């Protein structure tokens, strides 16, 4: 398939998942944020924005600005509206390859972005709507796109972004001083009920973090998402080698996953920031490696040539 199309599909996967994750994080944290005194609200809003990977433009950054930055700002790829806009733009460029179901659901979502009140109460509804829409997009993609190479790129983007988003959800633990942080972390990932059923009476930060980081069966856990990505990469490049990997992306994803999966620790909580940082780094490196290998090989050749 065309590199350009593959790239579009990869980014549709990433952006849709990013919108979904951001909506989840916003929905849960807004509730807490709202209860804080003004001064604290402001600093927490800025920290939350930083966790999501952006920086406040001015000190006067409070709740309304946070809503704009994470939900409604169409210019920023960090916001929900920006991500969904970008996903739709990518689908538009690959319109002849994606199914009409996928394209139409993304397009409808794009036009629905403006139909929401942008205050706190409206944002709750907005987040719910986004969750519904993204679920619909993934569902339609699953059932109307053939699971060939193009599908692998879509899932690859989604899995990488999912690992990244879960890492950010875990990082939000540091942000909010008031409240049961681990319940919020789990609610973010929609993992609360699953967690309770698996862990029974073992509550607490440590167990919740472990669940979101290492659980082998929960689809939003980092290890699960990285394994998905790994499987996609393997299917995209099935050439079996006796030793090692030539594919950079596979190496990066595989190393991160196996490190986490086989890592033994007594004090997960104090290591958590490092894990999160490394996972996010691995995702961005893998994403770069995938671009080099599949989307713009010309650049890669030139670049490697320079070094050697």
């Amino acid at each position, binding site marked *: 398939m065309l590199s350009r199309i593959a*790239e*579009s599909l990869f*980014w549709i996967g990433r952006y849709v998942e990013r919108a979904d994750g951001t909506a989840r994080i916003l929905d849960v944290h*807004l*509730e807490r944020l*709202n*209860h804080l*005194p*003004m001064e604290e609200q402001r600093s927490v809003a800025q920290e939350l924005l930083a966790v*999501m*990977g*952006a*920086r406040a433009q001015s000190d006067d950054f409070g709740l309304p600005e946070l809503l704009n930055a994470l939900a409604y700002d169409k210019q*920023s*790829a*960090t916001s929900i509206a920006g991500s969904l806009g*970008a996903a739709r*733009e*990518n689908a538009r460029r690959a319109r002849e390859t994606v199914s009409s179901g996928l394209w139409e659901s993304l397009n409808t979502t794009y036009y629905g972005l403006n139909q929401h009140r942008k205050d*706190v*109460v409206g944002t*709750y*509804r907005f987040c719910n709507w986004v969750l519904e829409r993204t679920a619909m997009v993934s569902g339609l993609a699953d059932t109307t796109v053939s699971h060939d190479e193009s599908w692998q790129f879509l899932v690859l983007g989604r899995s990488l972004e999912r690992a990244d988003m879960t890492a950010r959800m875990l990082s939000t633990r*540091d942000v*909010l*001083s*008031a*409240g*049961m*942080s681990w*319940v919020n972390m789990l609610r973010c990932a929609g993992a609360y*009920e699953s*967690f*309770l*059923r*698996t*862990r*029974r*009476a073992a*509550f607490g930060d440590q167990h919740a973090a472990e669940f979101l980081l290492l659980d082998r069966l929960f689809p939003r856990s980092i290890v699960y998402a990285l394994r998905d990505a790994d499987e996609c990469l393997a299917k995209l490049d099935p050439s079996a080698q006796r030793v090692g990997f030539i594919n950079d992306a596979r190496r990066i994803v595989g190393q991160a996953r196996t*490190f986490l999966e086989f*890592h033994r*620790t007594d*004090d997960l909580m*104090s*290591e958590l*920031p*490092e*894990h999160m940082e*490394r996972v*996010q*780094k691995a995702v*961005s*490196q893998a994403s*770069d490696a995938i*671009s080099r290998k599949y989307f713009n090989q010309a650049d890669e050749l030139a670049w490697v040539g320079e*070094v050697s």
Partner: protein
Amino acid sequence: MSDLFQEYSEAAGRTGAYDEMFAPGQQARKSYGQVALALRELSLADVSARADSMARTFLDRGVTFDFAGEERPFPLDIVPRVIPADEWSVLERGVAQRVRALEAFLNDVYDKMTVVSDGVIPRQLVTTSAHFHRQVHGFEPAGGVRVHISGIDVVRDAEGTFRVLEDNVRVPSGVSYVLENRRAMAKGLPEAFGQQLIRPVEEYPRRLLSALRKTAPSGVDDPTVVVLTPGVFNSAYFEHTLLAGLMGVELVEGRDLICRGNRVYMRTTAGEQRVDVIYKRIDDEFLDPLQFRADSMLGCPGLVNAARAGGVTIANAVGNGVADDKLVYSYVPDLIRYYLNEEPVIANVDTFRLEEKEAREHVLDRLDELVVKPVDGSGGKGLVIGPDASRDELDALRKRIIADPRGWIAQPVLQLSTVPTLSGDKFGPRHVDLRPFAVNDGEDVWVLPGGLTRVALKEGSLIVNSSQGGGSKDTWVLADSPQVPVEVIPRPTIAVRERVSVWPVESNWRDSQKEQQQQQQISDAQEVTANA
């Protein structure tokens, strides 16, 4: 105040009750300051839009109760009920005290009955109670607790004094609405949360689970807890699923359980699994066909014997109903003095015992001014409010009282306190009660800071039961200082924290070049341009 409150003070004047939000003269009380401020900002359109969205959320989430075979959302009003910290600390003490007294009473009643031999309460009263079960006489339940979960209904009279209306130590329900109401309100009226400290309710399931595990039969290391439900047709089925889900335990029906050798097992795909603690949400009469109703399909034969042998903990214990008897209720202040050697913190509502001849004659003369209740009723069943009843109803009631004086009590009509409630296009005063929930783990009685506030949605109505047109309100208990909430954990400042390093040192030659790209924003910007 906006025009939503225009005719409020007149309507409040008409009821003659204590209004919780406004002092006379339409002055918002201090505890309601924030709520009043938030409501003032809203127009009618805002309020009704939010009320609609809250109702829809409840229906979507399946927060319903079963009414005549139909699932209905439990109406949640948009105005919360606020209880200031000082009033709550009294309530909290009063509820815990009552639970301790009832626990002691039940232990005594199913054992030596010293309370009878010491002349505090007549033997006949205990033994004639419909819920005094001889089947569980003479043994201490495993874990040593009988009243694990209780809901003590309290109301405020015209002076604003809290009084206990009834005790529920069998199967108190409604706590699921406390949890769901808080979630809905956080999204429905976020402005009102603002600057005040509202004590959280979400730790209830964890407290409950830890209390249940703590009271497991001795010698069990990792007890298995289950919630026993009558099934999907029960009016409180939603609550059973919610609690089981939030505790992360199995929700079982009677047919999932088997008793063998005085132990209880559940049938699972991995074979039979031992059950140590049963949170029982079905009535005693249906629990065990060997001991109670032989035609019951809801229970499991052998449970009572297993409990007697100490093989399983049943929470709440079988036979607690005797403490719910409304005639026993009239003795609870005496029981508190007898068992705890304390004065009751919260008073009872004055109650006439109709077996006493003088009281009965007095009541029969004034039936049209009193409330008459059956002693073993719940959910407002069979209750007659004198001033609202017709001649015929009162005559019928009179005959029934004379035929069975043990079966009834009479109380003066209480003007329950009112809280503003949305009705049509404005707020009107509506009567409320309060059910705080307490969890007893054998060492300590913990009272959930909050509770179920039920509200009679019809103007002037005093009946708050959901089956008779009642709704609910979120109940906010304010914390008096930031130190009180147990939730606050000190925030580690990110800059100060020591970095632990466990990942392998990166040796890849590309990494150094990638360092500059760590800022997601920058790489995102590139992604966008790359895609555009």
